[in-house]
């Protein structure tokens, strides 16, 4: 954990910035990451990283600059040298045509509620043993691959605007395993997520595979003809499509610039179905909870869409400054999106029993946006996707493409499950930054467009 020495170094650097008469924000990001990858029934990579990043943002009047440096924070000089780089960049910058907002840490924050030491120091052999148990249960006749990331993330922020400090420490894990038939080529996946070691249960994965394997082993793939279908989206699909819908419909930059599918709407307009409520809830335990943003703003429960009506738009500080709005606590890597549940039976099969044929698509691969203005997205089914008839799983389906609109998928929802599931949405492109959404375990929507289907899974 972060030492007092480092905190003191940050405060010394803060004083130096004040002396230079610049506004500065100093951010510390430390990740202790471990990842085990599985390929061809073996551990293919076992990797550990302990990385520290220092981010400095400087404002001089309407000019701004940022600088990031990776390395141990060993002395005041180290941070002050980085500050000097950021200051020089800012001096040579040009004036913005709006007044940037100051980063102000609204109160002292000290958040460790989702920290589990046991997960942070998890012995890699724990993962290897779990993977081995799964592989041994189903045998070498299948091809197993997967990954299991775990670790801790530590953030600390001070600014020149006041003496307050913001500290956040969280642990997270994201487990996946894919079971592939070497000849028939279908793939099953099991995922688990959480912030503590005990959130992982190897038997849960074994149970999931045992339930689906007979369907895949005993039935040929079903080729879905292009057309409209009743589709059940599972949790990963709901979370990822919703993430895209939010980004293109509810974020201030897209909204103000009329680039998204809500461009013609105003607050209070009906944009989705009456049974859809979306909240950014930093107190939802099914998400990774962040009580402040990187500008120091306290994050509150923030209703984005209530009963299908547009309630609030998300403004990061830069967009807020540009369009003269109030920032909403969203200068942050990820939100805590919670999609409201309904009254659908916990059992998906019971819930769809009276609906005849439905396609269950738990996850969509490679979602993208051919037309943001119209809210059109596209993506294809992959793992665990099946055809259900009268409440019974009858066959796996070949890779099928949905190309439809957010307004359609979340506008005509017939059934929403009563239970919710946590979906890990962490982006591992750069630094560790755990993000999860809490979503219903399924939604059932009629008239979804399937526009293509492969001859394979």
């Amino acid at each position, binding site marked *: 954990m972060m030492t007092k020495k480092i905190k003191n170094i940050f405060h010394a650097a803060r004083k130096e910035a004040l002396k230079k008469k610049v506004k500065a924000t100093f951010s510390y990001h430390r990740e202790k990451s471990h990842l085990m990858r599985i390929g061809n029934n073996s551990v293919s990579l076992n990797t550990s990283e302990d990385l520290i990043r220092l981010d400095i943002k400087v404002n001089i009047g309407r000019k701004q600059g940022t600088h990031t440096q990776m390395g141990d924070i060993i002395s005041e000089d180290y941070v002050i040298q980085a500050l000097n780089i950021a200051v020089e960049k800012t001096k040579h910058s*040009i004036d913005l045509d709006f007044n940037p907002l100051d980063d102000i840490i609204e109160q002292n924050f000290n958040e460790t509620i989702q920290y589990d030491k046991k997960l942070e120091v998890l012995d890699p052999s724990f993962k290897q043993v779990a993977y081995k148990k799964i592989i041994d249960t189903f045998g070498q006749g299948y091809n197993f691959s997967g990954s299991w990331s775990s670790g801790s993330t530590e953030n600390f922020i001070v600014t020149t605007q006041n003496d307050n400090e913001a500290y956040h420490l969280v642990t997270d894990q994201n487990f996946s395993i894919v079971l592939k038939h070497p000849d028939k080529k279908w793939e099953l996946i099991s995922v688990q997520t959480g912030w503590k070691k005990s959130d992982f249960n190897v038997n849960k994965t074994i149970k999931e595979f045992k339930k689906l394997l007979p369907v895949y082993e005993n039935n040929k793939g079903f080729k879905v003809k292009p057309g409209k279908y009743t589709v059940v989206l599972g949790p990963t699909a709901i979370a990822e499509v919703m993430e895209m819908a939010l980004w293109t419909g509810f974020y201030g930059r897209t909204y103000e610039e009329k680039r998204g599918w809500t461009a013609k709407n105003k607050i209070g307009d009906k944009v989705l179905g009456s049974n859809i409520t979306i909240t950014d809830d930093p107190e939802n335990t099914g998400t990774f909870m962040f009580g402040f943003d990187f500008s120091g703003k306290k994050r509150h429960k923030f209703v984005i869409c209530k009963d299908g009506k547009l309630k609030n738009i998300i403004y990061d500080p830069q967009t807020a400054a540009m369009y003269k709005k109030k920032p909403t606590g969203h200068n942050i890597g990820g939100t805590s999106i919670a999609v409201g549940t309904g009254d659908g039976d916990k059992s998906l099969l019971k819930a769809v029993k009276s609906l005849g044929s439905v396609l269950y698509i738990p996850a969509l691969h490679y979602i993208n946006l051919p037309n943001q203005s119209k809210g059109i997205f596209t993506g294809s089914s992959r793992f665990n996707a099946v055809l259900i008839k009268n409440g019974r799983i009858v066959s796996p389906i070949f*890779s099928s493409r949905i190309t439809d609109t957010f307004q359609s998928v979340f506008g005509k929802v017939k059934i929403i499950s009563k239970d919710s599931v946590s979906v890990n949405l962490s982006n591992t492109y750069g630094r560790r930054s755990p993000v999860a959404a809490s979503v219903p375990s399924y939604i059932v929507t009629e008239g979804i467009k399937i526009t293509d289907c492969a001859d394979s899974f």
Partner: protein
Amino acid sequence: MSEKIKKRITENISKLMAKKSAYIDVRLVTEDNSESIVLYDGNLEDNDTTFENGIGVRTLFKGAWGFAATSNLSKLDDCFELSFLNAKTAAELVNVPLSMGKQKGHTGSYKSPVKKDPFKVNLKDKIDFLKLIDAQIKEDWIFKRYISATFQKKNQIFFNSEGTVIERDLTDIFASMMVMGIDNEGQMQRRSHELFSEGDGTRGWEMLTDPKLFSSHTGRIKDELAALLKAESLKYGKRSVILLPGQGWLQVHETIGHPLELDRILGYELSYAGGSFVTLDSFGKLRYGSEKLNVSAFGGFANSPGSFGFDDEGSPEGNYLMIDKGILVNALTSRAMINEANEKAGRKIFKESGGAARSTAFYRAPIDRMTNVNILPGKDGNLKDIILNTEDGIIVDNPTSWSIGSNREHFHFGCEIAWEVKNGKKTKILKNPTYQGHTVEFYNSLSAVGDKSTWQVGQVENCGKGEPNQVMELGHGVPVLRFDNVITGERK
């Protein structure tokens, strides 16, 4: 690099080899700097630098990899030890042991061709250059303007337990400009242009300031946006699709490059990026495309982010054909993957590593990546010639959306702009173009390949793959391409 650090690295390699490690490699990155500048509507919204340095150690023990990295060289010995311990744990679960084979140690170096180091150009000059372009694309009717430039510089020294030492100095520049407007139906339309190369020339500041490659395109994208704002949408139907290089590079990237990464073919990327419809049995047999399709790896040209001399296993970047007259013959490969593939196939499909093992940073282990994946120029003339021989089709440019099946067997693309082609003539501009297809069927419908005059190298700044995810820079040399009988537009 100090002799002291070098000595400590070689001592640590010896120490771990004495513990019966099969192979060790080390990437010491002394600087990995990037600078990003973004002008959005004339505002300098991004003015950022990032500096990284450190060491990554990869150890192969009893057929399994362990990796560890640190940005603190005082912890170098611990980093080696952790890499070894991670390999030991990994070795507890090995059913398909990995092997690097045996090679003689060698030395080498590579430096990107650069006349003027972009990091020696001061920030004011960089901003002034972008402001000049911004002034050229600024019009009252243009709703938003975006110009970005990213500069990257990396010094890396590679060591392995075979005695190989390779030093590389890599420089890259990426830039793009975009204009956006609201069309007659209230939808946002855009036109953009990205800095490209023609394979030759150098990769310094002089590349960005070469008008042919960047600044001279301002007028064109404005004119095309103006036409798009009044255009009709493309209607659903089957027709020929002519890909300009601004779209062709992404088609090649997603449906030739990724499916030919050998680690994907062997199933190492299933849980995230996906697999490949290509199997080991496909090599030498699969008709991937028509006889007009010839695809190379690397391509032997210097001015590309995918030209880097040696990969992150110290292998020289291979220059070879992957598809020869439509037949699949090779893949993007690294040392451990070719050994496993040849053993599984029971025949020597891959003679040597293609030099495609790449890691994005010192804290990531190398995986199989694209280098330059190129379609070779053909004999069907220039764009005008190809249009002249097209009865019913569209020409498309620049991607807005791309979505590909998990085994790269099917795809859906959206583009910024289309031009209708009827009876050998370019007629009108169409908005919201999309097209989709199945990879093998699509490349077998390749009916025209433009000549060298149509060939450009698309620069890719952000190809994502792997867990943890690694963003990689690479290139695609592509000519104008025509495919027939393609599904275009969206069904009602």
